[in-house]
């Protein structure tokens, strides 16, 4: 398991753009929003939590089609499926690697992008907390989408259509934590719901992903 994690991380870093691409995409979204809605800082600070969450979600989505597709093409997935390691575990590791290469950098960089969107001072802590709790769910759900569409040629658009509706609950509670935090309100309820969704998804989704991948490998 450790070897698989190490391999995935190394591949992501050396094949170029693992850490960088997602972050750069996140930055571009953040820069484009003021062009779209205007530079008034009071408007920006109101929508900042939501924009940052949507940016994180899209950046996460963008890197999903590389999650399994390359391993599918060169046959690594077949090897993984026949190895003693259960496919569920292998996919969990892959989701973890995806989170380390895209989710974690987004969590760490989010405060900087918050400055660009004049996020209120109280919001920074909650933004980081909500992203840290929510992005693992995005990676795990995304792995399911990748496993479903891995056999489809040019499945990127299809995968977005499948995965984005599944992101709705995570996005709602995550953005709600960040928004309430920024406005200085109680965040306990959405925070607990977000944590619950992440925990549940981590526990259950690898089984669904592995089932889908087994069908595709048949």
């Amino acid at each position, binding site marked *: 398991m450790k070897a698989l994690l190490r391999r995935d991380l190394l591949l992501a870093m050396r094949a170029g753009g693992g850490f960088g691409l997602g972050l750069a995409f996140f930055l571009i979204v953040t820069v484009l929003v003021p062009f779209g809605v205007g530079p008034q800082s009071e408007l920006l600070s109101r929508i900042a939590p939501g924009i940052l969450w949507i940016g994180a979600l899209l950046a996460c989505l963008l890197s999903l089609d590389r999650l399994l597709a390359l391993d599918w093409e060169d046959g690594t997935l077949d090897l993984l499926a026949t190895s003693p390691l259960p496919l569920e575990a292998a996919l969990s590791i892959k989701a973890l690697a995806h989170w380390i290469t895209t989710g974690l950098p987004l969590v760490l960089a989010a405060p900087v992008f918050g400055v660009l969107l004049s996020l209120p001072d109280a919001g920074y802590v909650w933004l980081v907390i909500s992203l840290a709790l929510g992005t693992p769910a995005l990676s795990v759900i995304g792995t399911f989408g990748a496993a479903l569409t891995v056999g*489809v040629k040019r499945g990127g658009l299809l995968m977005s259509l499948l995965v984005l509706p599944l992101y709705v609950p995570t996005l709602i509670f995550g953005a709600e934590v960040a928004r309430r935090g920024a406005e200085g309100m109680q965040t306990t309820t959405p925070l607990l719901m977000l944590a619950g969704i992440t925990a549940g998804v981590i526990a259950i989704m690898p089984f669904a992903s592995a089932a889908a991948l087994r069908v595709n490998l048949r």
Partner: protein
Amino acid sequence: MSMTDETSIPKRPSGFWSYANPVKFLGFSERVLPALWWLSGICLGVGLIWGFFFTPDDFRQGSTVKIIYLHVPSALMAINAWFMMLVASLIWIVRRHHVSALAAKAAAPVGVVMTLIALFTGAVWGQPMWGTWWAWDPRLTSFLILFLFYLGYMALWAAIDDPDTAADLTSVLCLVGSVFAVLSRYAVNFWNQGLHQGASLSLDKEENVADVFYFPLLVCIAGFVLIFLALVLYRTGTEIRLRRTRALQAREARV
């Protein structure tokens, strides 16, 4: 041990499961379909004409109240169609009956149309009543999300060439999607308090609409259920024949 007795003798399935045989299913649906078409036509005709022309206008809503005869049944069927797809997918995963997978596939476009009718009639009603075509109300939003789930499900069917793989993957998607659809429903409830009124119908009769509207509405709902059944049976039959044609063509090509 009655269990071992039953499993040791391979016997032909009887009752409900025997319709997993495509030939038997087709025979059954051909016998039932004409009756279903007629019944649904009669129910819809009676319900809609009764509802539109022979019920009084509501004292606050005026004649716009009559959109209820399309809105409520279609919304009901939009959810039930997904539920039917869920059950059919489960049957496919557990018992591997092809008819079941094809029925789930056949139900999706019907469900999507029901969702669209519900959304559209809701918008038409909302414009004069709430003063807006669309609001990010929990019910409206979750219906839009349900619509997206339908689109994703149908897109996945269309994207995969091998029919068995497609059936497997869409079944898994349907199961996972159901969980997330319910989750989204509650998440959306939490996210925004709504404009939409409470249920117009319930079995325990505590918050029902008035009787003058209630009975034609029931007839309309029956009509929608029947036409849904008829459409799904008809489309499933088409899918079975389509697959049989493909198999014959493949055999021809080989010779």
